[in-house]
């Protein structure tokens, strides 16, 4: 245990090296805050999402099939591991609210799977349960009514309840929307009997399947596929369903960040502790001798010095443990635009313990090591005067052509820097981290801001995408549109795919005319790619996640028929709109029909309102409206950018201040000598700070690849549906460099101010 007097001594010692110990404390706090904070985000999301999935009895997979028979249900129920099957109806529908779409789930009385989590009111036969976020933004309450359009028929429904859904935790309207927006997309749960007025009978298009835990889902999928046969539209596993995979993507994203980001801060904590403790222990050489002479045991002396690091480390960790989950978990999780039933903070105590252990290694462990060297000597040796600091000849001196031409002050700086390599490494890592983190922050922001430009400037060159009702737009109509501009017909749908590794899931397929005037496909190097006549295109991100490439073949399910193998001819890079792209001619050669679901238009004059108002058109989106959707999410991004910059700045400030101050304090006698000899403040300041300029230069250069890496890491895990490269740009690098230099300048000026107070007489008086 800490002994009374020794404990007092350590407190006083720490007060003497305030700046250093505060730095260690700040770094330890930051490291643990960031680690436990990022951890608490995914842990909270995961726990709350899992709890919600359990509470609502979310299915393990869904088999989409038009009008499943009782035999189908019965056969699937018989598959090994399947515990429960139910049928339901699931589709998107327009509403009487302009621009708003609702996903409709029609359930039976006796349904127990995929239940909405009712927050207000109840689910009943003659009414609907509405998405509570959707209701809130549209000012709808229980007792109001809402109309949805199914198969061209309006259905007016009284709102009997408000709810949230496990399948709608994180969903967006379509591939053009970046973030969930309850004003344009939500869900509604109705009773299947309500469908009778539209379809004349109860209709179903999906079988929800629940399995026992540990069931081999791949086998279930294969068996279900063969049971349903040609009628199958597709099978979706829970993990591949839109909402669950988005939530998992988020969890994965923060898991990666919580592993990568703190590394830098733990490293700097260790380095600062090292430089502080080595100096402290060395200054206390005699005192260690005295303590030993007094009869203190090896262990208690070791513990005494180790406790410096341990105390600050534990204090910093505890602060971090309080700040991290509360700032990140409690404040950020509700900002992630996930609709969960609870945002209750969940704390991963194992990660807490791990963070604490790491910080103890970085502080206590390093302190122990610093002291270990000295306590081995005998008291007599320790009480003797410290051998004088040695100057050493360095390599550069053997090249007289350089060395002899250098000014003495530069010689001094070079020698001193090389003597304290550890410190140079520390401040370089700090600056490197600062530059890297700021580059990443700026890159992520400009990537997100630039998505619309990239997507709509490079890839999609249309002004407007008009969704049409395929039933009302036959080929004769489409061929005689007579619109003033360039048009392109596309068909978007989901298709069941079997991959070479046996994995089976639904993907988005886009069929379009082979000339494709308004969708410009390019490979990753920017070379244009055209739609092939004899195969398909599959986007880069999709290929990467499935581990397949150009030349591989996949099997796709044809409507009402068996699977057919198709070859991937090219792999286009598309930031948004992951999926499969085929030409209409190839599509027809597979025996499928080309029935366009949308028209892309690049207007040559004003928008043709007569066409847009016609009943063929069900929805339309302009480039501007995509922009608006994006700006709503900028708040969170700006917060993240500011947080990252603050992190980077504190990293740079702490390390540079530390190196500067240590450099100054350690050489106070030398510097006082220079003052006496008649050196001006400016000249002395340079002697101390040029070392910092070195690390700023070196750190900035090394920080650029680090920034590139972090940018890539964040960009690639930002959104499942996006293929973002996170490429750094010159302006961002320059801004990050300028900011770092600005932070460094502030730090250096505050060190210089401290140096100005140097009392040369005081410094020269005592020889210690």
């Amino acid at each position: 245990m800490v002994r009374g007097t020794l404990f007092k001594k350590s407190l006083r010692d720490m007060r003497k090296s305030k700046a250093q110990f505060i730095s260690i404390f700040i770094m330890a706090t930051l490291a643990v805050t960031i680690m436990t904070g990022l951890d608490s985000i995914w842990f909270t999301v995961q726990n709350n999402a899992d709890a919600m999935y359990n509470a609502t009895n979310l299915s393990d997979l869904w088999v989409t099939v038009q009008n499943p028979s009782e035999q189908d249900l019965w056969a699937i129920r018989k598959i090994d591991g399947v515990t429960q099957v139910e049928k339901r109806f699931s589709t998107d529908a327009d509403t009487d609210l302009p621009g708003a779409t609702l996903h409709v789930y029609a359930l039976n009385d006796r349904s127990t799977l995929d239940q909405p989590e009712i927050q207000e009111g109840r689910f009943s036969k003659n009414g609907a349960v509405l998405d509570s976020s959707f209701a809130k933004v549209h000012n709808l309450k229980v007792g109001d009514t809402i109309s949805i359009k199914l198969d061209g028929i309006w259905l007016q429904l009284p709102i009997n309840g408000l709810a949230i859904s496990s399948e709608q935790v994180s969903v967006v309207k379509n591939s053009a929307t970046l973030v969930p927006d309850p004003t344009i997309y939500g869900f509604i749960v109705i009773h299947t009997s309500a469908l009778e007025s539209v379809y004349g009978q109860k209709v179903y298009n999906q079988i929800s399947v629940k399995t026992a835990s540990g069931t081999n889902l791949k086998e279930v999928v294969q068996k279900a596929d063969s049971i349903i046969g040609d009628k199958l539209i597709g099978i979706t596993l829970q993990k591949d369903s839109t909402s669950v995979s988005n939530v998992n993507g988020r969890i994965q994203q923060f898991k990666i960040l919580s592993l990568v980001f703190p590394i830098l801060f733990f490293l700097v904590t260790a380095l600062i502790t090292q430089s502080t403790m080595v100096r402290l222990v060395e200054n206390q050489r005699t005192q260690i001798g005295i303590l030993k002479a007094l009869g203190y045991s090896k262990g208690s002396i070791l513990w005494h010095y180790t406790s410096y690091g341990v105390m600050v480390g534990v204090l910093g960790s505890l602060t971090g443990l309080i700040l991290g989950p509360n700032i990140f978990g409690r404040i950020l999780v509700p900002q992630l635009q996930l609709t969960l039933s609870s945002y209750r903070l969940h704390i991963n105590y194992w990660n807490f313990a791990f963070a604490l252990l790491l910080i103890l290694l970085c502080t206590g462990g390093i302190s122990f090591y610093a002291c270990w060297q000295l306590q081995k000597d005998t008291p007599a040796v320790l009480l003797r005067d410290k051998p004088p600091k040695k100057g050493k000849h360095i390599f550069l001196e053997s090249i007289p052509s350089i060395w002899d031409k250098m000014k003495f002050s530069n010689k001094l700086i070079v020698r001193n820097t090389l003597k304290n390599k550890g410190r140079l490494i520390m401040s370089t890592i700090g600056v490197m981290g600062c530059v890297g983190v700021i580059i990443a922050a700026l890159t992520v922001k400009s990537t997100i801001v630039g998505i619309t430009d990239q997507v709509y400037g490079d890839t999609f060159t249309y002004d407007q995408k008009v969704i049409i009702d395929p039933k009302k737009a036959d080929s004769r109509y489409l061929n005689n549109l007579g619109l003033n501009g360039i048009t392109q017909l596309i068909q978007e749908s989901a298709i069941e795919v079997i991959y070479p590794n046996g994995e089976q899931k639904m993907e988005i397929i886009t069929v379009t005319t082979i000339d494709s005037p308004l969708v410009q496909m390019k490979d990753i190097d920017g070379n244009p790619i055209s739609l092939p006549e004899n195969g398909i295109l599959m986007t880069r991100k999709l290929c990467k996640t499935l581990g397949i490439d150009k030349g591989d073949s996949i099997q796709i399910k044809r409507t009402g028929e068996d699977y057919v193998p198709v070859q991937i001819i090219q792999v286009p890079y598309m930031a948004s709109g992951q999926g499969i792209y085929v030409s209409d001619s190839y599509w027809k050669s597979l025996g499928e029909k080309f029935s366009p679901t949308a028209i892309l238009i690049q207007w040559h004059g004003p928008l043709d309102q007569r066409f847009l108002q016609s009943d063929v058109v069900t929805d339309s989106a302009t480039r501007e409206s995509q922009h608006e959707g994006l700006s709503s999410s900028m708040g969170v991004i700006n917060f993240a950018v500011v947080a990252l910059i603050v992190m980077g700045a504190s990293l740079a400030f702490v390390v540079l201040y530390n190196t500067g101050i240590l450099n100054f304090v350690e050489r106070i006698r030398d510097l006082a000598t220079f003052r006496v000899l008649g050196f001006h403040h400016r000249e002395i300041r340079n002697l101390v700070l040029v070392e910092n300029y070195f690390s700023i230069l070196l750190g900035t250069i090394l920080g650029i690849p680090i920034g590139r890496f972090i940018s890539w890491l964040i960009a690639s895990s930002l959104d499942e549906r996006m293929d973002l490269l996170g490429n750094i740009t010159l302006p961002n690098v320059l801004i990050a460099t300028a900011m770092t230099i600005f932070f460094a300048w502030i730090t250096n000026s505050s060190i210089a101010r401290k140096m100005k107070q140097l009392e040369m007489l005081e410094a020269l008086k005592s020889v210690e």
Partner: protein
Amino acid sequence: MDFITFENVERVYRMGNTVIKAVDGISFALNKGTFNVVLGQSGAGKTTVLNMLGGMDSSTSGRIIVNDKEISGMSEYDLTEYRRTQIGFVFQFYNLVPNLTALENVQLAEEISPDPLDAREMLQRVGLEKRMSNFPSQMSGGEQQRVSIARALAKNPQIVLCDEPTGALDSETGRMVLRLIRDVSNDLGKTVVIVTHNAPIAEMAQTVLHMRDGKIAKTEFHEHPKDVEDIIW
């Protein structure tokens, strides 16, 4: 013609409520090119006099005039310039820069002085031509002090100030160092002021200022100062 003049110089230190008069209204004058000693016990105020003369400390009141220029009341920047061009310091503990070799320590002075003497030549003069590329930690105390004398003189200052230059040396080495200071500054025509508590050293000075309790108790002039070899320590 007086080269250095102190007129009623006072130096008061305030530490909280206690006021310490380190130098209590002293006046004296020293000639150019002379060898002078300020003698006194520790706490007599002699180092404060040296510091004020060297531009390392400023007086509370009174005037200090060196070479027709009043240095009392100079700005921080001007004092630095003054130290840079006019003053050479030799300390009890040498204050060499550990990271620089003997030669580089002397070149340090060469670099900032407007009219320096050759560093190698100065080291030769103090007899260290063979130790030029050694670091201070590789030299004895006497050798280090000789480097510091070379450094003080290489600046080609008007005044050489020495604070207990023999304090950390044995008597034989001390004698050698004193001789060196006197011979070299004689050759170069420098004014030397040595501060010491070691009374016998005073016998080699032309002017001796005896200090006690911040005042000059007695001023002694020697027409024929003794040679270092004749001093008994």
